Structures are given as C-alpha cells and as structure tokens.
C-alpha cells in the first residue's frame, strides 16, 4: 500500500511542458551522454587495472637480462640491458612511459624471443577468440534454451533436471571437464583429435572439430550459470504484475514470453554473461594447455611462468580491454532491453 515512488508530475509544469527527464531527449544526445558516462566509468578502471598490471611486473624484480642474454650473460651485460630498457627509472615514470606505448598498441617485445608482444597476441587471439567465441555461443544458446525451458515449465521434470544439471556443472572445475572430454571423445571413442588448432581459413571443418571440445569444456560452467540466472530471472518476471496485466489484456503465452517476460527477466543472465567473459578469457589458460592450443591464455600463462614480464603485462592489458569492451556491450544491451535501468545509474 505504499505510495508510488514516482513524483507527481501531473500539473507540474516542468514535467508536462518542458523536456522530460530521460525519455524524450533526442536519441543522439542520449547516446552521447551514455558514451560519456561509460567512458567516465571505464577509463579509471582501465587505468587502475593497467597500473596494477604494470606494478605486478615492476615489483616482481624480474629483469629481461637473463632471458635476452641467455646462457652466457655477465653482470655487466645485465646492467647494460637494464639501463637500455629504462628499468632503472622510478616506477611511475616507467608506467606512464609504458602506458603511452600501450595505448598505441605497443606492448614492447618479449624478453624471451624479442618478438613484439602485440604481434604475438594478435596471432594468438584468433585461437582464443575462436574457442571463447564458440564457448560463448554454446553458453548463450544452450543456457537460454535450458533457462527459458525451465522457467516456462516451472515445477516440471524439465525444470528439476535443469536445476540438477546446473548444480552438478557448477561443482565441476573446467579442467576436470576438459580431461573427461578428452578421455571420452579422443581416447575411448577416437572421434576428434585431442589437441591442436587449425585456422578457419585453412580448413573450416577441422577448425570446428578442433575447437569443439575445448569450447564445450570452457562453456559448461557458463551454460549452467546462464540457465540458472535466466530461470530465476524469468520466474521472477513471470511473477510480476505486468505479466498478470498482459494476461488480463488477453495476450497469448508466447507473446507474453517473448515480448514481456524475456525482456525483463533476461537482465541478470545478461549481467552474468558480462561477468563470465573474464572467466572465459581466464579459463582459457587451463583448457588451452590441456588441449594443446597455442592461444592467448596459454601464451599468458607461459609468459607468466617464464617471468616474461612484457608478455604478462600485454596479455593482461588485452584481456582487460576485451572484458571492458564486452561489459560495455552488455551494458548497452541491458540499457536497450530495459530503459528503466537508466534511472538507477
């Protein structure tokens, strides 16, 4: 019985005659404002994340000298290389210098082989994006199917099956799934090769065959999460009064699902999708090393294990940018889907 939170705008000149807050502003100005706000939130995150990334390398005390000089380095060589690379300057100066290169897409060269980090990342990103993209596709398609099914047939065996599936999968670490998939589909039933990668333009069939297992291993968790969130979100939306309103207006169940419920109930699942993207990028470390794909995740992990600081920093920055971009897209989608969300920011 609480009063509505909306201020009475009837008979309020500002609301009736003037431009309304939010809704009626020209679309262009709205988009520009959204962009500005997004930047205002994203840039600090980017700066802080990159600083953290840089700091990680700086405090590690590692130096490229050992890697560059190899088996035959002398202390003098080491000092020379350090000075050449500017590693004897204050950290903040180094960070600004590094960042100014990073924003131009220059992550420096690998300490290990002297090859430009950005070109290496570029080479490998296609591998990871294939797998992560496919995993994302699986997650969205399967997660949506399961989640929507469970929500529409609430309380049926299907709903319970989805719930059980989600609980089981949530407890399965991706590497366990990966190994199980290899054991089943490569060793016991030799259907697909267990390892390797072929670019799409070289052999699309093989490309798909090779990325399927890792993508499945990587996506399962996300499938469960999306299904679960979607089911909860949709079930919540089904309980909303506007659904009752639609029923009372004589609208059919399909129209109610697609036009009203999905739009509002998909929000949490979409947000989860946004949160899942860093995990897909991060999870690639394990799956790529198990499936022998020279992808981005493995590159990052190998770089880290070898103490190849530019590689670690470069991969982290790229991952961060990927995630920020993905989150911005999710954010924009959410806003399109649910304009009311604009109010809450």
């Amino acid at each position, binding site marked *: 019985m609480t009063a509505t939170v909306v201020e009475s705008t009837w008979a309020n*000149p500002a609301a009736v005659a003037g431009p309304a807050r939010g809704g009626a502003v020209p679309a262009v100005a709205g988009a520009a404002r959204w962009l500005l706000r997004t930047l205002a939130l994203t840039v600090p995150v980017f700066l802080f994340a990159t600083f953290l990334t840089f700091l990680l390398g700086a405090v590690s005390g590692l130096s490229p000298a050992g890697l560059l000089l190899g088996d035959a380095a002398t202390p003098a060589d080491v000092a020379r290389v350090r000075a050449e690379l500017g590693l004897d300057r204050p950290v903040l100066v180094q960070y600004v210098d590094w960042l100014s290169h990073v924003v131009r897409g220059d992550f420096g060269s690998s300490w290990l082989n002297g090859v430009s980090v950005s070109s290496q990342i570029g080479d490998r990103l296609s591998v990871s994006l294939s797998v992560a993209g496919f995993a994302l596709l699986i997650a969205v398609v399967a997660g949506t199917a399961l989640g929507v099914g469970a929500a529409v047939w609430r309380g049926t065996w299907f709903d319970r099956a989805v719930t059980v599936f989600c609980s089981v999968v949530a407890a399965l670490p991706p590497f366990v799934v990966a190994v199980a998939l290899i054991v089943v589909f490569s060793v016991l039933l030799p259907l697909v090769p267990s390892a390797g990668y072929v670019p799409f333009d070289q052999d699309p069939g093989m490309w798909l065959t090779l990325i399927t297992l890792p993508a499945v291993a990587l996506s399962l968790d996300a499938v469960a999460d999306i299904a679960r969130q979607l089911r909860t979100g949709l079930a919540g939306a089904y309980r909303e009064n506007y659904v009752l309103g639609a029923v009372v207006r004589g609208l059919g169940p399909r129209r109610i699902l697609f036009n009203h419920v999905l739009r509002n109930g998909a929000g949490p699942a979409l947000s989860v999708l946004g949160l899942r993207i860093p995990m897909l990028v991060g999870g690639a470390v394990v799956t790529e090393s198990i499936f022998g794909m020279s992808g981005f995740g493995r590159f990052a992990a190998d770089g880290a294990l070898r103490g190849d600081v530019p590689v670690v920093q470069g991969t982290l920055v790229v991952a961060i940018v990927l995630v920020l971009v993905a989150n911005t897209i999710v954010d924009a989608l959410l806003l399109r889907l649910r304009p009311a969300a604009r109010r809450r920011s």
Partner: protein
Amino acid sequence: MAEPLLEVAGLAVALGRGRGRREILHGVDLTVGAGESVGLIGETGSGKSTLARTVVGLHRAARGRIRVAGTEVTSLRGRRLRAFRRSGVVQYVFQDPLRSLDPDLTVGESVGFGIPDAGSRVADALRLVGLDPALASRLPGEVSGGQRQRAAIARAMIAGPRLLICDEPVSALDAATRVQVLDLLVALCSENGIGLLYISHDLGSVAGVTDRLAVLHHGDVVEAGTTEQVVAAPRHPYTRLLIGSAPTVDGGGMSRTERAELRALLSASSSTGGSVPLGKVVP
C-alpha cells in the same frame, strides 16, 4: 504569547546535486504551540515531508530558520545534533511502521533502542499506547498493522517528547484501525501537552485531528488558518479542490464539473508560470 514550541520561519530547502538540484520549499512559515496540533496538508511533491525532515535535521535548510523548544536546530551539526536528538524533545512517527521498524529486531528492542534500563520503561511505553507488554518479544512481522503503528508511537513516547511529528501515520492502516490509532494520538498529545505536527496528503482525513491547518502546494503554504475556517470556507482554489476531491460519506461535496473547472484554473495558472495570480491565503 510565549515562544511557540516549533517555529519555522522563511524556510527554503533545496535537494539533489548538481544539475538535478531543485528547491523544494520556497520560504515557508509555520508554528506549532505547546499542546497544539497543526495539520500540514500537501500532495506528493508538495514538500511536506521535506519540511518535516528538515525540522528533525535530516535535510539542511538553504535559508530561514527552525527553532524547536528554544533551540536553533538549523545550525546543529554532528555531536550536538545527536545530543539534541537524544534529548527526545522531537519525535517522529513514520507512515509505514513496517518500514520504520527493523524487521529483524523485536518490538521491544526497537522501542527501547538506545534507552538505558529499557526493560521496565519499554513495558510502560507499550501499555501507554495500549499494547500488551508481552508483544515486546515479537517481531514487527508477527503483529498486526495497528499494533505495529502503536509500537512506533510507543518508540516516540518513550523519549518523552514535547513535539511529535507524524507523517501520514495512519494511511497504511485499514479504515477501522485508523480511528483507534488517531484516537490514541489525539489522546496522548492532549494529555501530555505534546505539540503535534500532523502531515497528510488528504485533508479529508486530518480535519478532525488538528486545531490548525496549513496547505502546502509546490513548496509554498498557500493557505493557513484554523481547521474550521479552512474546511468551511476555503479561499484558495487549490484548497477548494482538495476539499472537493476528498471522498465523503455524507453525500455532500463537489460535482464533477466543479472539480474540472478548478483543475483547469489551477493548471492554467501553473502552465503560465503563475501569471494567473492565485495568491496566498495566510492570516
């Protein structure tokens, strides 16, 4: 006349930040004497709650001053404000007890919040508002709406207030219960000489409670006077519309056409930025 218990003079309040900052009250005068009950009538967005909240220091005044029992409260900050509040001179009863009582604290805990040796005093306070002290161990969700609001009143009474501010205290209650709670409020105030500032959007339901009325419209008091004057002979068109809109059981009241005319007049005034002068009707 002695200094009034509550004296609000030229009060202006602005809320919000940056571009969203708006002046809600434009210079409001209001007094409540000791033992007097004053109704503040205003609809959503009129600024009535803002006024009440500013009196207890939940908002800051942009201009003007507020004195409560001789204390200038507009300038109180931090520790001194807290000390003033702890003195219990002003107490506040909210609209919905379900929201103003912590759902996880028992009625007794809420009533005795911050009170030393609360035990017996809580029981007394509950008895004072007509509640069984045994209810002290219940959670708000476990008692009826009327009992909850009585508990909220008990929480106010336990502090020994001289001024009680009630913000729509019965609008969340069923009609039958309303009467009982209003009976209780009126009785408590008159017996203890407590000043009452009673806030409502519905003039029709306040009229019987208060000695005087002030009608708030878009941040200005547009009409004030004794309840009888205002109800019997409203002079401001807005007041007339308010009274004409109140549903009544006596078959009296305004016709649909009369209401429509008043609305047209009011909206013409506001959409011309007040060039159709309506003025203020304040004694």
